[in-house]
């Protein structure tokens, strides 16, 4: 097979470019192998890990299958706790709500806790258009923001950067955004972390408005949960007068006790720790403690589309731990940018098409093919998302979306193959041409296959012909094991 395949350009081309960056490949291989080992160690500590995964999957599945009730309940409890609940169908609506709140307080800047959903909706850019600066306060987000870069990992958006690169970014860019990096900045991680602490502290101390996402939202109690490491989350959630949390509607869990399996699964899967340094929980407004004006924006932005997909729905269970990225052999080599989305890696390969729908743009359509279906992602996913099965189903949806009209060469090849493989007689006839085909492929010069791989020698006869000629080897006189080249 060759020629233009469905969805060919996007991921493969981006990946090709990424693969030529040996520094990137080195950074990624180092980082992912470190985190894989850490995860494996702390997961091995939990004897009932598989049951815990089942419990985690069940918590999310129950809430998703009962989502209408759970969302209404969440709205009720949040409101009763003094929070203001907003609903947003899409990114533009959510961004307008957040900007409106900031403007109501005459804020010209907001401090942000790292959140995937605000990246998904492009909140920082939308706020910038309204003249509001959004400061990312997570270390990796800061590196990305200062470096005018794009995130490449869910947990560690700057995973593609090594310490020396980070030092250079801090040196050259911190000054323009606030407190400059100290002159004697080295590339020691502890020194870099200290520089980030100094740089961001003044922003935390003066910020009037904080913006966050949430890892979980408990419908029964109106509690939001943010899981983090550095304390920047605590700063943003505690010090400003006003807090706005943008929460995807899939983040809801029904009951308080549902947090139990989730809080055990997430840190071990994510940073490979028994527990992350800080988890903050708040149920609306706590009088005299923290922000006294609390907003929650419940966001759809494609989630109901994903929910309607019976196979793909399970992707909404995702708790963004990034374990699937860290074990993915494709991600490890291409990095996150190749996926063209804030959600890279195996989860991105299914979530993007589920949120956006397939058949509209080549980039999205290429994502379900960005996998060998090796299954490593499913094996580690704490909420048991069967990513390979969803990938295969998404591929079928991509193909179906392109049925009708002029068939692409791949579709014709598949139809041809279906015809040949539909009858052994036809296959047998084609097999006799295998040798010619292989010789042709070799002569044809570098193709997608032969660019860096040799082809095997074609055998003299097919198995099927051998069986007929020798009665299944019974009349073969022992010369049946020397075929392989």
């Amino acid at each position, binding site marked *: 097979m060759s020629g233009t395949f469905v969805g*060919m350009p996007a991921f493969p081309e981006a990946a090709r470019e990424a693969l030529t960056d040996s520094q990137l490949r080195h950074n990624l291989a180092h980082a992912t192998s470190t985190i894989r080992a850490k995860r494996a160690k702390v997961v091995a500590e939990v004897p009932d890990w598989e049951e815990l995964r089942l419990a985690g999957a069940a918590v999310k599945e129950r809430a998703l299958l009962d989502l209408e009730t759970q969302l209404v309940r969440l709205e009720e409890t949040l409101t009763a706790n003094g929070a203001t609940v907003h609903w947003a169908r899409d990114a533009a609506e959510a961004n307008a709500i957040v900007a409106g709140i900031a403007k109501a307080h005459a804020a010209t800047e907001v401090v942000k806790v790292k959140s995937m959903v605000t990246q998904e909706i492009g909140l920082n850019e939308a706020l910038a258009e309204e003249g509001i600066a959004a400061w990312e306060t997570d270390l990796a987000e800061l590196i990305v923001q200062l470096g005018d870069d794009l995130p490449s990992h869910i947990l560690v958006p700057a995973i593609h950067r090594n310490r020396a690169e980070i030092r250079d970014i801090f040196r050259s860019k911190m000054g323009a955004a606030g407190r400059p990096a100290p002159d004697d900045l080295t590339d020691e991680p502890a020194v870099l972390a200290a520089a980030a602490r100094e740089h961001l502290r003044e922003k935390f101390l003066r910020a009037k408005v904080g913006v966050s996402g949430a890892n979980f939202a408990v419908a029964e109690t109106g509690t939001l949960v943010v899981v983090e490491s550095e304390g920047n989350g605590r700063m943003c959630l505690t010090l400003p007068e006003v807090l706005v949390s943008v929460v995807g509607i899939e983040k809801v869990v029904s009951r308080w006790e549902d947090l139990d399996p989730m809080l055990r699964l997430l840190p071990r899967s994510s940073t490979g720790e028994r527990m992350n340094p800080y988890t903050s929980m708040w149920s609306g407004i706590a009088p005299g403690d923290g922000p006294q004006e609390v907003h929650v924006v419940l966001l759809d932005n494609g989630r109901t589309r994903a929910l309607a997909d019976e196979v793909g729905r399970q992707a909404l269970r995702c708790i963004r731990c990034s374990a699937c990225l860290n074990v993915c052999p494709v991600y490890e080599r291409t990095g996150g940018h190749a996926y063209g989305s804030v959600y890279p890696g195996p989860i991105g390969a299914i979530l993007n098409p589920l949120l956006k729908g397939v058949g509209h743009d080549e980039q999205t359509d290429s994502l379900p093919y960005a996998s060998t279906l090796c299954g490593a992602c499913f094996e580690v996913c704490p909420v048991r998302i069967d990513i390979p099965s969803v990938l295969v189903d998404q591929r079928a949806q991509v*193909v179906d979306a392109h049925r009708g009209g002029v068939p692409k060469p791949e579709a014709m090849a598949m139809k041809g193959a279906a015809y040949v493989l539909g009858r052994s007689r036809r*296959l047998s006839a084609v097999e006799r041409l295998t040798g010619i085909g292989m010789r042709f492929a070799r002569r044809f010069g570098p193709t*997608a296959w032969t660019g860096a791989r040799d082809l095997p020698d074609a055998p003299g006869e097919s198995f099927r012909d051998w069986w007929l000629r020798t009665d299944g080897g019974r009349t073969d006189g022992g010369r049946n094991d020397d075929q392989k080249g």
Partner: protein
Amino acid sequence: MRVALMVTCINDALYPSTGQAVVRLLRRLGVEVEFPQAQTCCGQPMVNTGYLDEAVPVLRTFVDAFAGYDAVVTPSGSCAGSARHQHSIVAGRSGDEALQEAVAKLAPNVYELSEFLVDVLGVTDVGAYYPHRVTYHPTCHSLRMLGVGNRPQRLLEAVRGIRLVDLPGADQCCGFGGTFAVKNADTSIAMGADKARHIRETGAEIVVAGDNSCLTHIGGVLSRQRSGVRTVHLAEILASTEDSAVAEVTR
């Protein structure tokens, strides 16, 4: 027990020696396999590329060919996985209830070779002799879709004369992935190159796996690198005896 050999389309066309090895091996163990001539392919290339409608006629052929056998044995983890886990999806797509029923009946009877030997025949020592330094690559589908576990290693450990060496990063995918190998050729080759490097590091003469599709990819990279390491299917090692070793040397 009536046992059918599902040789797979790639073995049929490109690696008949693997199919022949299965026949020889099972015959030595007292099992006469039949080869239903109507068989073609499991349909996986279509399913994994997203062409479900196109896979339906292929599945019908598969079901017609293998219905009625007590066991269907195949020297491919990937094709066994396809039969066990994907055929129901294709049958569901067809809307044909008879086909769905037939698949439900047939799927559990499909065994990858090492599963058939260890679980059905209950043997790990198959009486093989193979005097080579060998490293084993567990293919993803055998490892994760089927869960063959250490069955292949147990079978290999019992082979006389063999020197088995551990493969670093063994559970990492080799980068084949069916149409992935051409749709995302650059990534596939990058993965294959890492796999080949690990294989060379072991100093093995032979890399063995339970799937010739992955071995085609790995072998293609190794051969392009002029590494001198050969790829051999698990069935061929298990089928080897002192006689065939002599034959190999004298040939």
